[in-house]
């Protein structure tokens, strides 16, 4: 009883996509992923260097 009431009160979300811009989807994702990967890699290098120095 309690559960069904909770379910009834829960909101169902409907996601609608809209696109605006000039770049293609692939290009945008590629740029973002490249940037993120480089950042991630630089962080990893920094941590490795710090660990080496500490050792």
């Amino acid at each position, binding site marked *: 009883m309690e559960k069904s009431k909770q379910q*009834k*009160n*829960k*909101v*169902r*979300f*409907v*996601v*609608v*996509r*809209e*696109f*605006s*811009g*000039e*770049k*293609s*989807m*692939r*290009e*945008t*994702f*590629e*740029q*973002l*992923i*490249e*940037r*993120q*990967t*480089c950042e*991630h*890699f630089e962080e*990893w*290098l920094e941590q*490795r260097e710090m660990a080496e120095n500490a050792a």
Partner: protein
Amino acid sequence: MSRKKQVYEKITALYCRISLDDGGDNESMSISNQKIMLRDFAEKHGMFQYEYYVDDGYTGRNFNRPAFQRMIADIEAGKIGCVITKDLSRLGRNYIEAGSYIEIFFPKHNVRYIAITDGVDSLTRQEMDITPFKNILNDMYSRDISKKVLAGITTRSRQGKFCGGTPPFGLMRDPEDKGHLIIDPETAPIIRKIYDYALDGMGCMRISKRLMEEKIPITHVKANTEFDANYYSWGGARISHILRNPFYKGAHLVFRTHQKGIRSNTYDIIPREDWEIIEGCHEAIVTPEEWEQVQELIDRKPPIMKGNVCPFYNLFHGLVYCATCGKSMQVRYEKVGRTGKNRFTGEMREPIDKAYYICQTYNRMGCKVCSSHKIEARDLYNLVLKDIQELAAQAMKDADAFYQRLSSRMERRYLVDASQTEKERQRLEARNQEIDGMFLSLYTDKAKGILTEQRFVKLTAALEQEQESNQKRLHDLTMMQSRADAQESEVRTFIKEIRRYATIEELDEAVLNRLISRILIGEVKKVDGQKVQEVRIVYNFVGEIPEIAA
């Protein structure tokens, strides 16, 4: 005592002035000629106690001239009995103020005024009736010059030539063409960084704080230069000025301000929508698309209200809007249950679990104007992350070529170039062998008696020293190479597994602002007894229709 006698007891001020517009090369106007003319006139008329007051390079449009002000102070102190100028225009070209000095100030202080070539003498009232008209003509001349100069600057500016003073930070004047700007290799990376931060969704204040943390120096230090922090004192206004500046997209802004009147020192700021921008005038630091995107980002960011510190960091700042009224949604934070524990399960809740967004209009004006459109921050986060991941999977479906490209680019960027080290090592080894040969020939020369003992010792010492330093460098290079080899293998492993890291696992401001233009939150509606809420995500790119499997 007669007034004439009184005049001769005091000193006579010989006032000379020349402005840059009057032309420094005009000999008849030059200061030296004015001085000679005034001195001859004074001596001829028995005024031997004179003093020069010279304003070289000052405009006649106003009276803010050092020598003129000094002369006025001396008049007020009662030291001057007569003022002589070459003509009326040397006193000033502003007919209102020049008239007030000639008609009011000088008579009030018993000062005789003489303009030699115009034939004006206040003592004899000679030509005094025509003086105001001559002053008006002088005034008109200066106005005409101002108009011509302004027209010249405007024309050059509309042709995309830089006519301002100091070029914007990040750019510099082309040494071959002063009106053309080129990129300043030293400061342009700072501008690029500022734009990158803005594209990542950071506001002006946050960018300025980040630059201060990174200790990036500003251009002009105005405050106490001994205080180190003043060299990095970036401010939000400065960042905003940079982000709004069209010069960085290679364009030229004709005028940013407008002078209210020719004599006025006050300027009206031209609104941004009325700016006259000439595109493609010089090399750009950011692309025009990026510049436009930054303008949009700044425009849509609502100001952060000061208040209680909310532990939830609003990732969606400037992105979430009410679908009904179009206003940005405010983030609110649950105040009940501050312990952070779930009442039922006892689990600790993160700040995001206690934050939610509501419509700004509803919050300010109540339910009669707009409804709450409430959405929990956690729900929004999950929805957006899931949608982005779906799109990413779709976009990167056959991305083998991209991953290969990325791997080779990273290898080029991060792997140490071993060929240079190897070259240096070979060079040093060859040199050491050469030195050994030289030692041998030196011994032979010494044995034959060609070389003296003293010279032999000197030469061998120098060669030994060189060989020693070469050996040391060789040792360092070997160490570096072995370290680089170890690092290379680790880097290669990382790059091999690049696909594992090249995914979007969580949302941050950079991901959101690079991908999404805005998120519109719809009203909660009841459909068949079930509450339904529409979340419209507007992406920054062109969508693709997924292929339907046959």
